[in-house]
């Protein structure tokens, strides 16, 4: 017989056998420990401009600019909460500030650090804001976490990582969701027909 026509190996413990709908949660897991090895680059975390310049005495300007870039990115993309208690539940006491915009007022965590890559490269460097939490209810406690909820492995004392370059791709901005429910009405129209139960889905 030639080659096997079926999947060689299935990790049974990781493939669930029945559907358990997980609660919606911020994305977790140490993604940078996964097997993707291509395209990774060294990235360092600094908690302030001074922290950066003391590690890179020749790059004072770059440290300042990277910090500024991270602050702006944080204003755009950091997690936003409608109440201070929701924010503090996730990030810890006194870790949140109130922000007022044209779209209303909300709470977001303070930027706790910024991650920089290729600071000394002649081309360009990448910078993004990082957050951390002191709340014992939070998966972010004592970890570095990005604006979109990715948690770095190891605790906040770890200051350098090898990261995928996509880590620095800017996330689209959302300041508020203005409507929901704009998808799905065609389904309602079609299922209004007949009495068949809708448990079987729209697959072909």
């Amino acid at each position, binding site marked *: 017989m030639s080659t096997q026509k*079926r999947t060689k190996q299935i990790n049974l413990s990781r493939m669930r056998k029945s559907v358990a709908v997980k609660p919606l949660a911020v994305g977790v897991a140490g993604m940078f420990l996964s097997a993707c090895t291509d395209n990774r680059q060294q990235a360092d975390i600094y908690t302030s401009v001074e922290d950066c310049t003391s590690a890179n005495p020749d790059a004072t300007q770059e440290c300042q600019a990277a910090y500024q870039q991270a602050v702006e990115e944080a204003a755009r993309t950091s997690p936003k909460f409608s109440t201070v208690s929701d924010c503090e539940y996730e990030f810890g006491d006194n870790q949140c500030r109130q922000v007022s915009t044209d779209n209303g007022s909300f709470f977001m965590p303070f930027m706790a650090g910024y991650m920089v890559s290729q600071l000394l490269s002649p081309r360009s460097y990448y910078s993004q804001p990082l957050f951390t939490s002191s709340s014992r209810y939070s998966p972010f406690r004592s970890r570095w976490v990005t604006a979109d*909820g990715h948690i770095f492995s190891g605790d906040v004392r770890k200051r350098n990582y090898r990261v995928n370059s996509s880590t620095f791709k800017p996330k689209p901005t959302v300041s508020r969701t203005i409507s*929901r429910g704009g998808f*799905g009405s*065609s389904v309602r129209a079609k299922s209004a027909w007949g009495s068949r139960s809708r*448990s079987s*889905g729209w*697959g*072909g």
Partner: protein
Amino acid sequence: MYGEPYWDESAYYQFSLEQIEQDIEAPTAELHQMCLAATERVVNSDALLARFSIPAPYWGLIRTAFARREPSLYSRLDLVYDGKHPVKLLENNADTPTSLYESGFWQWLWLEQNVDKGALPRQSDQFNSLQEKLIHRFADIARQKHLTQMHFSCCKDTDEDRGTVQYLQDCAAEAGLDTDFVFIEDIGLADTGVFTDLQDAPITDCFKLYPWEFMLADPYGEALVEADVDWIEPIWKAIISNKAILPLLWQMFPGHPNLLEAYFANDCPALSTGKWVKKPLFSREGANISMIEDQQEKALSDGPYGEEGFIVQAFHPLPRFERNYTLIGSWLVDNLPAGISVREDSSLVTQDLSRYLPHIIL
């Protein structure tokens, strides 16, 4: 399928390796390439796009997505196969195919367990590399697009669809991706024009088990261009999964052994003789199908579809084993044939293929 199907308290179908490789795997790869060629012709023709009932505002989006070869994950060709004659393509479920979990995981496990307990010979194999290929494909897509996270979505109140999507999330996680789930009905639109999940996180890359023709007809259809989501399946699947592809294939590859004669219902030359099946362009679950015989049309199934137009396809009966009609679902992951699922129905129209049977190669 050596003549008689094998039944015991757990039935299964048995194929030879030759049947699998020559009769199913090779034609599946070829049919898929033919469908891609037909899709290319459609995206380059306003007349064909209109004929496929694609609303004109989306033509640009489809053309761009196809020109960029926006990556596809998977599809399922429904084939008629009696074990002896060339397979015939009934339709191409390229946009929202289901029964994936049964095929990729459950069927595989069934074989392992039956071989382990000695109920099946040790050399039994199965045409089923679905799970392996799905994981590789997710890893490919993640690499190509520099992704670390992807959203997954399906409609509410459909356990079966949620199960399919959960299975795909598990495959994506095996490939190293973080996965987030949001129901189709819960997707939001932000002030900045992007789609959001219930945490207000932007949706940038999303697998959706929801037909493209519905997405285009929904109120958020208008927001698709600006939202700039990389969808899986990509929007060009609206062409390849459209039943209008069947008459176009027949026009491009007339007399191909794996095709059934097919025409658009409104310019159909040969209906005075023979038996024909008439199907809506967008039908799901075998709805709104009728049979035309001696110019008499008889409805075989009821349903909400049809305003978008119909095609007719030469009637080709499903093979019958014992009391059941059998349909082969032949899977592709991207361009690669990846296995089959066998489904049975007690009626000739495949309205509700609830019985799924595993298979072996021996």
